[in-house]
């Protein structure tokens, strides 16, 4: 168990005998701290899941005094989930899935193309265009959503999927991240392909996209989360219940059933499980893709 002395908190090697022991104690303390913090973040999720599988009366009966039934239902029931399904939540969920899926596919294509031009193709004014793209994403979408909604309704673009998808496509962070990755690919590859007579589209599709698959997945996650979370924009451009995305449906349920929260818990749990599962599988791509965000060119 002789680990190389990595830079971890611990005493300098001067006290050869006490140092390893002290270091081990430090590690135990830090581990306990990590576990406690992680559980603190997890408890609301556990409460949400438990509340999904019990009646609302039980939820509040058990929370008037602290006991373990707060996080573990005494009587399990699927009533809340059924109530959500019966009231058309699957329709809202499907809307969210469609909007997110279309956004991810088109968004990756658009961002990757732009990032490719900004990282690889040498043209005059490239720096200016890149600056414009970065600036554009410093203005958060939510801040200009309200005037944009007026424009969209002037154009007759309300209550349909294009209106919901469009804002998710123009993502400066995605372009920025992919550009960083493209810059990391040796330009000699593109140069060699050009000498062999390949055009830019071919270089893009055959060299750059296959080599940056992790970054593309990470970008896809960013685009997915943006749409999956979207709330302000959907309430601005949709008015009919059957076009509502799932987060809007939850807010409406919450506002309408202030005495019976079972359905709210069930809908939220379903809406949360999907990204949680995706992220558990793809988290390393997410970490890898955000890693380049803060690094220098």
């Amino acid at each position, binding site marked *: 168990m002789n680990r190389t002395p990595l830079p971890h908190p611990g005493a300098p090697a001067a006290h050869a005998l006490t140092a390893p022991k002290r270091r081990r104690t430090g590690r135990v303390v830090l581990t306990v701290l990590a576990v406690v913090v*992680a559980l603190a973040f997890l408890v609301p999720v556990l409460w949400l899941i438990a509340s999904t599988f019990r009646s609302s009366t039980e939820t509040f009966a058990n929370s008037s005094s602290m006991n373990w039934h707060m996080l573990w239902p005494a009587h399990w029931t699927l009533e809340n989930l059924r109530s959500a399904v019966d009231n058309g939540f699957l329709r809202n969920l499907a809307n969210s899935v469609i909007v997110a899926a279309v956004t991810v596919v088109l968004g990756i294509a658009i961002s990757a193309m732009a990032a490719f031009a900004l990282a690889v*193709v040498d043209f005059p004014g490239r720096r200016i265009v890149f600056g414009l793209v970065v600036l554009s994403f410093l203005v958060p979408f939510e801040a200009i959503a309200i005037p944009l909604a007026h424009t969209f309704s002037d154009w007759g673009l309300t209550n349909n999927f294009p209106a919901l998808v469009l804002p998710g496509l123009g993502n400066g962070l995605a372009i920025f991240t992919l550009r960083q990755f493209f810059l990391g690919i040796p330009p000699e590859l593109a140069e060699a392909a050009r000498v062999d007579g390949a055009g830019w589209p071919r270089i893009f599709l055959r060299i750059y996209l296959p080599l940056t698959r992790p970054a593309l997945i990470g970008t896809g996650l960013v685009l997915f989360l943006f749409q999956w979370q979207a*709330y302000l924009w959907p309430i601005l451009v949709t008015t009919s219940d059957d076009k509502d995305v799932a987060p809007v449906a939850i807010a409406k349920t919450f506002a309408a059933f202030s005495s019976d929260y079972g359905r709210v818990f069930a809908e939220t749990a379903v809406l949360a499980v999907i990204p949680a599962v995706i992220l558990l599988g793809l988290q390393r791509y997410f970490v890898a893709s955000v890693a380049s965000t803060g690094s220098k060119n």
Partner: protein
Amino acid sequence: MTLTTHHPAGDGAKPPPLPRGTLQRRRLLGNLSAAAIFLTPALALIVVLRLIPVVQAVNDATHTSLPGSTLPPRYVGFDNFTALFSSHAFWSSVQQTLIFNVLVNPLQIVLALALAVLLTQNLPATGIWRTLIFLPAAVPMTGSAVVWGIALRPDGPVNAALASVGIHQQPFLTGQGQVLGSIILIASWIGVGYWMIFLIAGLNDIPTVYYEAAAIDGAGPLRRFWSVTLPLLRRPLLFVLVADTVSNFVLFAPMQILTDGGPQGKSNFLMYDIFHNSFELSDPHTAAAELLVLLVLMIVIVAVQFRLLRSAEES
């Protein structure tokens, strides 16, 4: 990185040799048209989604109309702004927004940084702890807001937990003195894990040789954090600082779903107030003027953050 330094040579046999100037110009034109094609969708989206709304906001802010009237809006110059600036409710909204941001941003970043450092210490099962802390970021904001709204009810589990240690019932979202703290709690439960991931990625990028050198020099953990980690983490930290500030300035769902800006306007942050003016009071002109104020405020604050961190980098 640039291709201009390479000359289009190396294919001696096939094409008839053209004068160098022609070749270069042809290549430049080829690159320009390729760049134009590749960039068109993204630039079109930027124009439609970022530029047009700002123009629309300026237009809305300088006009006025009666609600429901069919007459075209009338140009009024800066009248909407002067009306806004003399409104007590507006200044109280600005004040609440600034107080909220001054509290929430440092808190979230310090927590995210502390957790990022903790979870890059090679502890057992680090991946699991990271994932659990990141998990709330995956729960859609609406869901988090709703669940916390229920948890913070007078008869909810948070008050039950407090009761078990002898603290009597707290109003949380309906208490003038507590609503800000409650929103900060909700926003931080969602945000801290998300920003932590960016900082973990940044920490992983720091070459271990710096730590080894510092350890040889006898620097303790705190000294290493100040002299090695912080300086080398400046870029990811700047990104997180700016992105977190921006996202907290436009935080909207918790107020719209849980507090309606109340009680007594204590959570009536600018972003919610703009929505409220625009849709509930049907006054898009005041809302647009207010939106421009919010945009200017955000740009100033982000610029200051950039400046501060850059000057820190130079010193």
